């Protein structure tokens, strides 16, 4: 068990990286924040590829997750968050070597009317489905994605369910007996 000296060992070396990332993002840089869980950078989609390439060079090789958030009615409305971590390769069978593994988050804010973000699926094959899921649930398009189809919902589904203006219930009745299609009766409040 190594002695904990730095309260945030996972942040070692990241602070030095941030100015470079800021430079790589150029005009698309929005802000760099040190959050409770990890450091993060917010940017517009234009700078994503440059920043992520720089991060990959710095050893962030595992794209843990790509998530979407709808901040409606705030603007910018959509947030795509990329969580990255740096996994050492080779003979790494000692679990303590991973203690305080570096993590980093990118938050990308595309524009509201036509949200488009460049795809990462040619860098990480794992991004393929994650991006399809965001397309399916939020309607954010990923430019250059090889196979941008719905993934969780049926292909003919209308609307984007995780958007905040998509109601929890009250849409058309889709699967009623006898092919009936009509509005769902409102919830009885009592």
């Amino acid at each position: 068990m190594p002695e904990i000296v730095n309260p945030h060992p996972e942040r070692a070396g990241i602070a030095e990286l941030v100015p470079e990332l800021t430079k790589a993002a150029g005009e698309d840089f929005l802000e760099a924040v040190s959050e409770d869980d990890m450091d993060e950078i917010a940017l517009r989609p234009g700078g994503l590829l440059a920043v992520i390439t720089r991060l990959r060079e710095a050893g962030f090789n595992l794209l843990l997750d790509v998530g979407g958030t709808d901040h409606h009615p705030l603007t910018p409305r959509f947030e795509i968050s990329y969580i990255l971590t740096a996994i050492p390769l080779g003979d790494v069978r000692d679990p303590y070597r991973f203690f305080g593994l570096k993590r980093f988050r990118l938050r990308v804010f595309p524009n509201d009317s036509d949200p488009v973000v460049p795809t990462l699926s040619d860098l990480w094959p794992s991004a393929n489905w994650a991006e399809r899921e965001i397309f399916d649930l939020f309607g954010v398009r990923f430019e250059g994605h090889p196979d941008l189809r719905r993934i969780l919902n049926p292909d003919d589904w209308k609307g984007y369910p995780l958007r905040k203006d998509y109601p929890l219930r009250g849409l058309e009745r889709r699967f009623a007996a006898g092919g009936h299609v009509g509005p769902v009766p409102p919830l009885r409040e009592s």
Partner: protein
Amino acid sequence: MTLDLRALESNPDLLLTPGDDRDTLILSMGPQHPSTHGVLRVMLKLDGETVITAEPEIGFLHTGIEKQAENLFWQQAITVVDRADYLAPLSNSLCYVLAAERLLDIDRQIPERARVLRVMFTELTRLASHLVWLGTHCLDLGAQSIFFYAFEMRERILSIMEFVTGARMHQSWFRIGGLAIDVPKGFLDTIDDFIGRFPDRLNDMRAIVEKNVIIVDRLVGIGKIGQQEAIDWGLTGPPLRATGIAYDVRRAHPYCDYDTYEFEVPTQTAGDCYARFVVRLDEMVQSWRIIKQARERFPGGPVVIDDRKIVPPPKTEIQHSMEALIHHFKLVSSGFNVPEGHIYQAVEGPRGEMGMYVTSAGGNKPWRVRWRPSSFYHTQALKRLAPGNLIADVVAIIGSMDPVFGDVDR
């Protein structure tokens, strides 16, 4: 339902192309195939019995859990979070609860008894989940008897769960601030009985399968993946550790005092189905060790924090104190507010890194709960693992990735 022609049409991988000869066959495996563990459809393009391309199709179990979680109070959302990865409900809720506690900044106040019980029960959950995997995976490979051994042991775990929490599957026992209720009288005897019984039974099971020539023949060298590719495909948990990378969230970012428990992180280097098989078997021994240590510690004291704004007061107090009654009423009718912020919390679930990216807008409901479903990424990796193998090996590969479709589709 008509055949999903549209999906076929828009996906060139699944159409016969000019290079294919007359033996090329497109086969839809699932969604009701017994070895697909629920509801996975894999579109296979075959040359004879060899897979050329595989395209998994998911979404059959999509129930909008993330959307539902946004429409429930912070404390209520635990009930739907539990139902995502339905074989490991307590791992899910632990992840969510830890994230919410960090947003509330009460994560350092959780009583020790609650932390020890959380560790004990997530490890029991891991055992239960791995036992289901062991039984069904071997069943897929044609071994019948191991299934009964595994499910008998799992039944004991579920009985403990039922005895303590009142529910066999979706316990919702971890709450923001601690636990829902303390363990009942007689719990220690039950857990001691289990701790005493488990090693022998696990050794029996290992003796049946681990060196079994049929199992070894079916698994060794199948679905091989190297370290770099495993990282590229987003694999975590046992599939990553089977390539020799000892990445375990319990060691990398310890939570619930995992850094004070003694356990090893089993690894293999081959990266094939058999390596994943052995890693999971070894993990079960380590989980048992952790449960044993948690049992030895087992401190007294409360199981929830003493904060009336988050945890309702005890029933006896409500009957005497007006203020306690008001607190109770407020918590039940409108929950509590969580300060604005966003946080990524990860725990080591049975399948891999189970992460949650939780955003709070300051209200009494989570603004967004984003899963990092490890099964989702593991299912996607079938695209890489299946080609080149026989159809029967696809069954072995699906089993060795151990996807749970509640987790994939949410």
